[in-house]
């Protein structure tokens, strides 16, 4: 267990009617860590993120961020306290430019920047995510790779202390994955703790400090990537669920 957790989850359970999406899940993330969450489809990864940021109310359990209880807060309140997320299926504001999209995060996120300060923040984020050249383009005209970057850029502009990335590498080609991995490291080096859900096991292993493996809503392993990925329970879960994913 990390000595100084920025995020701590205790006994988190989420049920939809009769279906249990998350069962009694507990873990802690240290400040400055890159923490991976992996698991087969339907393991409850996205539900976990939704519960963390208050988009869904957990059935039981507690989420603490920087010591403060997040349960019951609305999503925007959680984000303004410094815990932000991206969406697996990108959700750009299509009729705004890239710059305007990012400025929403700068204006209303944890930083609440206005005027020149906001413009500086936006320019800085666009530069770091490699979107500066598309700043004036309408978001609706971007390629999928750029849309994934925009999703990250907007969330970064909100100045989170901890950023939850939901499958930002899905649908990218190998060279794009490499640059996404270096972007993730760059984000952490900028002082942001990163929580990432990923399908690409190797990409996760290459960038994370620790990994949590979910299966059917329960934790089956947690620890440094090398050890976790050779854990028999993890191998079984992956091979049992989907051969292709284990190979990827």
């Amino acid at each position, binding site marked *: 267990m990390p000595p100084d957790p920025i995020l701590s989850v205790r006994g988190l359970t989420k049920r939809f009617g009769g279906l249990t999406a998350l069962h009694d899940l507990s873990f802690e993330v240290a400040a400055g860590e890159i923490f991976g969450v992996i698991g087969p489809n339907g393991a409850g990864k996205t539900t976990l993120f939704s519960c963390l940021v208050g988009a869904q109310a957990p059935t039981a359990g507690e989420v603490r961020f920087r010591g403060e209880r997040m349960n019951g807060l*609305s999503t*925007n309140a959680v984000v303004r306290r410094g815990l932000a997320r991206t*969406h697996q299926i990108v959700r750009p*504001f299509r009729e705004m430019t890239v710059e305007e999209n990012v400025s*929403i995060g700068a204006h*209303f996120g944890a930083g609440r920047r206005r005027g020149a300060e906001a413009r500086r923040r936006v320019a800085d984020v666009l530069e770091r995510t490699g979107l500066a050249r598309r700043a004036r383009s309408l978001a609706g005209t971007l*390629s999928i790779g750029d849309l994934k970057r925009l999703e990250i850029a907007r*969330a970064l502009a*909100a100045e989170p202390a901890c950023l939850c990335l939901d499958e930002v590498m899905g649908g990218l080609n190998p060279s794009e994955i490499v640059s996404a991995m270096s972007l993730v490291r760059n984000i952490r080096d900028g002082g942001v703790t990163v929580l990432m859900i990923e399908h690409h096991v190797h990409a996760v292993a290459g960038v994370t400090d620790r990994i949590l493996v979910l299966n059917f809503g329960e934790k089956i392993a947690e620890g440094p990537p090398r050890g976790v990925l050779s854990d028999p329970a993890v191998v079984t879960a992956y091979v049992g669920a989907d051969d292709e994913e284990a190979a990827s």
Partner: protein
Amino acid sequence: MKRLPLAAAAVLAAFTLAAPLFLERGTLNDVWSLAFAVILASAWNILGGFAGQVSLGYSAFLGIGAYTTVLLSLAGVNPFWTLAPGAVVAALFSVLIGLPAFRLRGPYFTIATIGVGEAVRVVASSVSFTGGSSGLRMPAGSFDFTLNYEAMAALAVATVAISAAVTRSAFGHALAAIKQDIDAAEALGVGSTRFKLGAHALSAALVALAGSLYAINFQYIAPSSVFDFRLSLAIVLAPIVGGVGTVAGPVLGAVVFSTLQIKLLSVPALRDSYLFIYGGLLILVMLYEPKGLVGLARRLLARVRRPPVLPPEAARAA
């Protein structure tokens, strides 16, 4: 390029305000109606266009403004001092309605607002302090049309200026984000309920102010005049036909609608078919140009400027 519309707007505003100097009373009346329509359309557009929350219950705010003015005037208050209280009551009512209603999304919100509008109309025509269905008359006293005209014109100019200011502000950006994807907006820290409530209150207050001036001008209000179906339709249809979510759209729509209204009143054959015209316009706009006249103009302009339309791949490469 950006200066031109601004200059045109300033000239138009100055002309409207100075109109009593050179226009005769009949024409001035028409401009008064136009200003009234511009206020309703532009104010509605702040919530319905910028934030994308389509409400069909705005006649409630018009009614609140009008009734507050008449009731306070009957209690001995100078009519022009009743404007602010009317706006405040309408804003408070909008928050009261909005707190629960903004939990609903899209069409569900719209249906709820039909319910609210109907409930207010029914209550106003059945309780006794509003004079029931026979309505209320302003206390006898001197009434200055020019003063009322100036107030209405100034309010129209102010409303358009406010909506232009909103589009440039962080508040306006938040509304645009809410309109395009409310969950994504929330995930970036936008407190959507708070902003929707703000937009609702601002537009409700502006509509209530127009309602107060309306009551002072006609010196008599009744459910059949304040909650007139044609009027409540125009509040929604003018911005939609003109182009929701833009500053110019509602103004354009208001011009179209008040011209139509004036023509409708003078030509008997048209008077009986206004619903055909309104309904037909709405159908056409929804099927062919959901961004209204402004959207149509933009499309035409774009075609004039660069005739060959780039295929998407080329556009991306550019």
